[in-house]
């Protein structure tokens, strides 16, 4: 029962297929991969005055098809940490499940909370271990991790590349197929209006929804909000909260007043 790396969940479960850095010898087939692998599309994270806001569309695609239009892409890792997922849905959900267990396992075994730095490094490790699979053209995923840091009393946002490099951003991050199309727009908002970190929740939410709308216009795989309301969650000093659906519906209607979005279709 001795545990050489005490509190290490990956060691406990003896590795997860595709998550332990082992190269599989399955043949590479990009055509098949795109049909098999359901992808989440655009997610956005911005800092606002009291913390961090995450917004994402609800579409999940496989190849040219829409697999699901109510996908949850912003998930809680613990009481003060959100992960917004893009890329392979299967892999991302498995890794989210892995991370939640890994954090709780560490806390319960070691009788202390894993540090924020330890947690974001664990995300890096999961991405790095997934690299062999990603190189075979299947299962690549890129998350954005948002957290409220009680030590500095502010929201923090980390984004990653496909090899697991971790970057901390001062203002915003976006991932997924629509994200490249709107990256410049974030900077435009910061320069011409004001930094996101100075915005109220409502102001930041409005900008994010407009950005998501633009991403949906420019990227075929991004769902936007013409049918289903996007997912929006935040973290402040009290923990994670869901953005009020009525408030979001109101803003959506104002952004695009010609259409009765969200009003004709009851939104779940």
């Amino acid at each position, binding site marked *: 029962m001795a545990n050489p790396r005490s509190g290490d969940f990956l060691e406990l479960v003896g590795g997860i297929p595709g998550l332990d850095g082992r190269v599989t010898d399955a043949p590479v087939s990009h055509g098949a991969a795109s049909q098999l692998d359901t992808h989440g599309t655009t997610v956005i994270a911005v800092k606002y005055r009291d913390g961090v806001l995450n917004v994402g569309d609800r579409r999940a695609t496989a190849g040219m098809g829409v697999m699901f239009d109510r996908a949850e892409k912003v998930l*809680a890792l613990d009481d003060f940490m959100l992960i917004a997922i893009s890329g392979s849905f299967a892999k991302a959900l498995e890794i989210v499940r892995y991370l939640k267990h890994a954090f709780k396992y560490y806390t319960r075994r070691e009788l202390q909370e894993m540090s924020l730095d330890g947690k974001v490094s664990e995300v890096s490790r999961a991405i790095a271990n997934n690299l062999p699979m990603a190189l075979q053209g299947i299962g690549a995923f890129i998350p954005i991790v948002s957290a409220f840091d009680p030590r500095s009393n502010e929201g923090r946002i980390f984004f990653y590349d496909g090899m697991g490099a971790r970057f901390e951003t001062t203002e915003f991050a976006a991932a997924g197929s629509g994200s490249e199309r709107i990256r410049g727009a974030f900077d435009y908002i910061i320069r011409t209006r004001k930094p996101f970190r100075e915005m109220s929740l409502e102001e930041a939410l409005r900008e994010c929804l407009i950005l998501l709308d633009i991403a949906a216009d420019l990227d075929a795989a991004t769902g936007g909000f013409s049918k289903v309301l996007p997912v929006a969650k935040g973290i402040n000093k009290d*923990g994670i909260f869901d953005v009020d659906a009525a408030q979001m519906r109101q803003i959506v209607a104002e952004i695009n007043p010609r259409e009765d979005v969200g009003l004709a279709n009851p939104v779940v």
Partner: protein
Amino acid sequence: MSFTPYDWNQAILTRSEYIEERMRGGSPVVGISLPEGVLLVSVHRTQRKIYEIYDRLIFGAIGNQSDIELMRNSAIDFAHREGFQRSPDDVTAQRLVGSILSPAIKKAFGDPFTAPFVFRGLFAEVGEKQTEDSFYALGYDGEYRNENRYSVVSGSYEADNSMLTLLHDNIDLISDRPSAIKLGLEAWGTGKLHARRRVMPLGRDTEEDEEVEILTVEQILKEELAHGKLEVGLLERKTPRESKFRLLSSDELEPVLAEYR
């Protein structure tokens, strides 16, 4: 070396005596089910006694610190491996105690060539509804008891019985969390009273010594709480937090503690 059935019997007996002797003076753990969740109540001197095992499981024990730690870690390992590979819903106290820990303890206890576990543990599981709450009290010989509304582990089975009787008679009178903690403390004190009677100086018999009998549960609690710390773990039934477990703060325990100063 030959090993006869007689030797085996003798070895088991010696082991029981050894284990019970080691645990006799220890601090009991009391479990109580409430509408808001399940509580584990104990008093400690130095080491913490109540631990989170998994989303719906907590644990408190009496015995050797190293044995308690081994059990705690084994339980956490099983729960997390199972919860990840199958589902958190499949991690239950029944499975953990009945098919994982109990056989392992029994094996160690029955094997005269390994050290037995000096351990009795109380596992508490919170259900969706209060009627689904359950407690598993696991002994050093692998035997376990399953109860729904309350349970205990203490240094001896006699102490267990007195504590359980007290809980049985008063469980319907508790109305809220403070009254449940108070009942838990009274049960704890009852167990401690037994332990004190048993740990007598050599050559004196409890039944004949009237001086010791004078101590009441309340006196014992006053004395123990002056030196020790009340520890109450709550596993909440409904909470938006990721973890349902928390140790109650001293502010939350103050109303109960004030009665014993």
